[in-house]
C-alpha cells in the first residue's frame, strides 16, 4: 500500500487536483446556469448552431495544418495568413460584384466567383511559400522552418497591410443569404450558417474521399509514412508535398470566404486568431489525423460558443463570453496534459511498432 502510494508523484497528484477542481467548477456552473432559467432552449440552440458554423470554419483551416504536418512534420504557422490572403483578395471581387448588382441578381455564380478567387489566391500564396520558404530548408533542423514560417506569416500580414491599409473592410451583403429559418419557435438557423455548415461539410467529405480512395490520395498517405520508400515506389515526393499545400490552401481559401460572409469584414490581421484556433483544433483532434482535425474544429467551435455562458454565467461571472478564448485554451492545456496525443491521435509508440 505504501509502495503504491510512493509511486504516485506529487506533480501527478497536483494535476489531478487541478483537473478535478476545474471539472467541479464546470459542473457547478452549468447546473447553476441551467437552474437560473435565464436562457431558453432557443438560446442554447442558437449558441450550438453558431458553434457548429464557427467550428466548421476552424475545421477547414485545421485540415491545412494537419495535412502539412502529416507530410512534413512541420507546423506551417503562416497558414492563418494563407486563409487571410484568400479572403482579403476575394473581398475586392465580392465588393465589385456587389456594387454592379451581379451578386444580387445571380448569387450562385457570384459566390462561386468569390470562392474561386479566394481559393486561387490562397493556393498561389501557399505554393510560393512552399517553394521559396520551406523547400530549401527541408533538411534543416526542425526549428528553422518553424521560424521561417513565423517570419512568412508576418511578411504576409504586413504586405497586405502595406497594400490595402490597416482598416477593416466590410464584406458586402449577399441578399439571398440574409434572414433565417425558424422551426417551431425553438430552432432558428441563419441562411449564412446553413451555407457555412453545408459547404464545409461537402469540402471535408470530398477531401476524405480523395485521401482514402484516389491513387493520388493514397500516395499522399504513403509519403506521410515514409518519403524514401515512397520515392522507391516511383512516387514524386516533391509533387505530393506541393499537392498537399495546394489542398490545404484551397480549403483555407474557402474557409476565408465563409468566415468573411459570416462576420462581414476582412482585415490584414484576421488570419491570426482563426489560425491559432485552428491549430489548437488540429492538436486537439490529434495532429496529422484528418478526421481528428474535423472533429477538433467542431468541438472547439461548439465549446467556445456554448462553454463560457454554460460554465460561468451561473457562477456570477460578468460578461462570460469575453472569456471564451481563455476557456478554449484552458481546455487545450487540460487535454494535452491528460491525453497528449489529442482526441484521435495514436500513441507514437504504438504507431511505430
Amino acid at each position, binding site marked *: 500500500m505504501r509502495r503504491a502510494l510512493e509511486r504516485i508523484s506529487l506533480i501527478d497528484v497536483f494535476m489531478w487536483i487541478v483537473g478535478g477542481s476545474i471539472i467541479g467548477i464546470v459542473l457547478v456552473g452549468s447546473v447553476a446556469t441551467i437552474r437560473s432559467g435565464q436562457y431558453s432552449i432557443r438560446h442554447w440552440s442558437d449558441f450550438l448552431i453558431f458553434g457548429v458554423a464557427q467550428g466548421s470554419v476552424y475545421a477547414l483551416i485545421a485540415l491545412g495544418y494537419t495535412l502539412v504536418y502529416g507530410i512534413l512534420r512541420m507546423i506551417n504557422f503562416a497558414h492563418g495568413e494563407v486563409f487571410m490572403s484568400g479572403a482579403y483578395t476575394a473581398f475586392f471581387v465580392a465588393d465589385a460584384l456587389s456594387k454592379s448588382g451581379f451578386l444580387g441578381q445571380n448569387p450562385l455564380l457570384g459566390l462561386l466567383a468569390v470562392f474561386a478567387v479566394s481559393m486561387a489566391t490562397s493556393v498561389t500564396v501557399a505554393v510560393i511559400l512552399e517553394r521559396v520558404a520551406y523547400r530549401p530548408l527541408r533538411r534543416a533542423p526542425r526549428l528553422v522552418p518553424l521560424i521561417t514560417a513565423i517570419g512568412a506569416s508576418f511578411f504576409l500580414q504586413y504586405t497586405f497591410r502595406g497594400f490595402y491599409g490597416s482598416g477593416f473592410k466590410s464584406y458586402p451583403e449577399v441578399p439571398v443569404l440574409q434572414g433565417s429559418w425558424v422551426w417551431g419557435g425553438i430552432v432558428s438557423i441563419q441562411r449564412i450558417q446553413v451555407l457555412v455548415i453545408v459547404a464545409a461539410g461537402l469540402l471535408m467529405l470530398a477531401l476524405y474521399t480523395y485521401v482514402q480512395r484516389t*491513387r493520388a490520395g*493514397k*500516395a499522399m*498517405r*504513403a509519403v506521410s*509514412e*515514409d518519403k*524514401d*520508400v*515512397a*520515392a*522507391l*515506389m*516511383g*512516387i*514524386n*515526393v516533391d509533387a505530393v508535398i506541393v499537392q498537399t499545400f495546394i489542398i490545404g490552401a484551397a480549403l483555407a481559401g474557402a474557409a476565408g470566404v465563409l468566415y468573411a460572409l459570416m462576420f462581414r469584414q476582412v482585415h490584414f490581421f484576421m488570419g491570426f486568431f482563426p489560425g491559432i484556433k485552428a491549430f489548437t483544433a488540429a492538436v486537439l483532434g490529434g495532429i496529422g489525423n484528418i478526421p481528428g482535425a474535423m472533429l477538433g474544429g467542431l468541438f472547439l467551435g461548439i465549446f467556445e460558443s456554448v462553454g463560457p455562458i454554460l460554465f460561468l454565467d451561473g457562477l456570477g461571472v460578468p460578461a462570460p463570453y469575453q472569456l471564451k478564448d481563455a476557456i478554449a485554451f484552458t481546455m487545450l492545456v487540460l487535454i494535452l496534459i491528460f491525453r497528449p496525443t489529442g482526441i484521435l491521435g495514436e500513441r507514437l509508440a504504438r*504507431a511505430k*511498432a
Partner: protein
Amino acid sequence: MAILEVENVHTYYGNIHALKGISLTVNEGENVTLIGANGAGKSTLLKTISGLLHPKQGMIRLAGEDLAAYQAHEIVGKGVVQAPEGRRVFGRLTVSENLEMGAYTRVDRSGIADGIEHVFTLFPRLKERHNQVAGTLSGGEQQMLAIGRALMARPRVLLLDEPSMGLAPILVQSIFETIVQLHAAGTTILLVEQNARMALQIADRGYVLQTGQIILSDTAGNLRQNEMVQKAYLGMA
C-alpha cells in the same frame, strides 16, 4: 547481356566515404548476390543505384543508359525497383493499397489487377489479409508484402535488400524459395544479404563487399569454396 552496370562508383554519407570505387554488373536473367558484413556499404550501394543517394563519381547504367540524370522516382519507372532493408511497408495502408503503391508508375489498370493476382498466387497469405493494414502483419508477411510490392512495378532489375533480416529460420527458407521461383520465372535479381550461406546457394554469381570496396567476385559455387569467404562469411574454421 549486361542490364545493370555499376562503374567505379564513389558515394559519400556526409563526410564518410562509404563506397570507394565499386564496379559490378548484372546480366539479364541473372541472380547476383552481394554479401558483406554490417556496415560494408551494401545498402548504400542499393540506395545509390535507386537514386536515393547520388554518387560523387562513377556511373550507373541500365541497359546502356546512364541513370545519373534521373531522380529516385524516375528510376523506378525505368525498371530498377527495390524492396528496401527492414521491409518498410506502409503500415497504415492496407495490403492491397501497398500493392497499388508498388504499381504507382503503371497506368494499365487491367495489368495492375493481374499483377495483384500474381502476387496473391505467390503469397496466398497476403490474399487472406488484403484488407488488413500492413502494420498489423507479422514480420514474415511484411517481407512478402515488401517483395510483392516491388514486383508490382514489373522490375527489369529487382533489388532485394536483406530480405531475410530478422525472420525466423523457417520463414527465411520460404523467402529464399520465393526468390528462386522469381529467378526461375526470368526476373533479374540483385540480392544483398548478410546470410551469405543461403545467398550463395541460390545465386549465379556473387560479389563480396568489405568497407566500401569489392574484394572478391566469382561464381557462387567458387565463392562457396573460397577459403576466405568460408572463414569470414560462412562461419567455417
